[in-house]
Each structure stands twice: as structure tokens, then as C-alpha cells.
């Protein structure tokens, strides 16, 4: 079955969505991300959507649930690379991606993940490994 690859980069997982998503692919991705967080003890998940030319409420919902599931597993999620036309359309559609952190690009997303993990460590939260 077709699947969206998940790359491990240090403490983070990187997912680049390059295909137009249908239901089964989205469901498989949710399962794969949560499995990978547990298996690799990742602290952060970055989802690159720069290749997506549209985000509808289904894809928005999927991004939201990946962020929620990751949070429950103690990993932060950041969505990066949204195209301007997609952002304009999302807002008009009424989708605010509540609970999903966003950054302009992969570099900014990486900074965001790093700083939130450092903040957690400084607050004395339990750190894995």
C-alpha cells in the first residue's frame, strides 16, 4: 500500500506530504506517526506541506489530530511551508488549525521545535534517553 514516508532526524520526525491525500493514506499516516514517536522516542514532529496545493477541512482535521496525538505522546508538532494561496483559502473556509503550531519553513520549524524542547528541559520535565 502507498504510504507517506517518515524520516528520523535526531530527536525529530520529518514528514513531507507530497501527494494529494485520500482517506486511507491519511489514516495510515496517523498510525505511522504515532508508532514512530513511540519507537524512536522522538520529541518533535515536523510536517512539511509546501507541496500541497490545497488543504480542505479533511486534511486540516488530520493535521490537527496528528498534533493532538503527538502531544499526548509528549512530542511537539509543527506544520511548515504552507503556500500563501492555501493560507488565504483556509482562513476563508473557516479553518484556523487550532492547536497546530505553524512555521514558515523547515528552518523556522526546526528552531521552534528545538526551543520548545529546551524550555521543557529547563522546566525539569522528564527527558527520555
Amino acid at each position, binding site marked *: 500500500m502507498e504510504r507517506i514516508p517518515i524520516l528520523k532526524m535526531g530527536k525529530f520526525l520529518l514528514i513531507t506530504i507530497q501527494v494529494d491525500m*485520500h482517506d486511507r493514506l491519511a489514516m495510515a499516516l496517523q498510525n505511522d506517526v504515532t508508532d514512530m514517536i513511540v519507537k524512536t522516542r522522538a520529541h518533535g514532529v515536523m510536517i512539511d506541506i509546501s507541496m500541497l*496545493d490545497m488543504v480542505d477541512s479533511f486534511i486540516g482535521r488530520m493535521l490537527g489530530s496528528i498534533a493532538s496525538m503527538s502531544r499526548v505522546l509528549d512530542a511537539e508538532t509543527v506544520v511548515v511551508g504552507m*503556500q500563501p494561496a492555501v493560507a488565504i483559502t483556509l482562513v476563508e*473556509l473557516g479553518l484556523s488549525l487550532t492547536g497546530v503550531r505553524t512555521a514558515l519553513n523547515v528552518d523556522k520549524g526546526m528552531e521552534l521545535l528545538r526551543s520548545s524542547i529546551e524550555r521543557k528541559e529547563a522546566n525539569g520535565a522528564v527527558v527520555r534517553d
Partner: protein
Amino acid sequence: MPSSVTESVSIRSSEDVVRMRQWVRARAIGIGFNLVDQTKIVTAASELARNIIEHGGGEGHVQLEVVTNNSRNGIQLTFEDKGPGIADIEQALKDGFTSAGGLGLGLGGAKRLVNQFEIASHVGEGTRITITRWMHT
């Protein structure tokens, strides 16, 4: 409002929704829609086609027409299903209304993304929604 091209696709699965999006995008590019207008009509189409699967009895079709009004081009899409129909259309158009556990942005959201939105629905017979988005001049 004379029309030039009429095409139709059937919607039975989420793969059909993905294919329909690509089809609408190609037509929108073909008649010269800018990127934001393309994205809006494709996103509205995606919401309404998904509605057919989730609420419209799981099967229906989408018809596409390239329409012209005062030398301005537009895309008109008609979504038709023979599902259970919508009893209270006004309520269904409100944000947050959902009968399938989703975000409930489908109808109202799609309406905001287009210039014209018409809906006709009869309980037990089905629903027909027509949307039109005009090109910026």
C-alpha cells in the same frame, strides 16, 4: 449565461475526490484562473464532493461547466447525490454544524469560497448544489 464545455465525473470514494480536485484545478488553470482563485474553487469542490461521500448516500456525481458572463469566464460545478437529503438547509449552512463527526465547515465554508451558491435538497430524494466562481478581471 451560455456555457461552452460540460463534463461530468462520478464520486464514489475518496480517491474520486482526489481525482476530481485535479480535474477542477486543470480546468481552472485552462481558463486562466489565478492561483488563489484556483485554490478556492478546488477547495470548495473538495468539501462538497466529500459531502457526497459522507452525507449524500456515498455516491453521486459532479458536473463541470465553463461559463461566460459579459466576456468574463467562470467555472460552475454541480454536485448531485441521491442521499437522504438535508431537512434544515439553513442549519446545515451554519459553521459548526455536522452530522458526521467532522468540523462542520463543509457547506458554509464552501459557500464563502465561491461567488454563487445554490442548494436544492429534498428529504429522501437527494441534494443538488451548484457553485460558480468567476475569474478576476
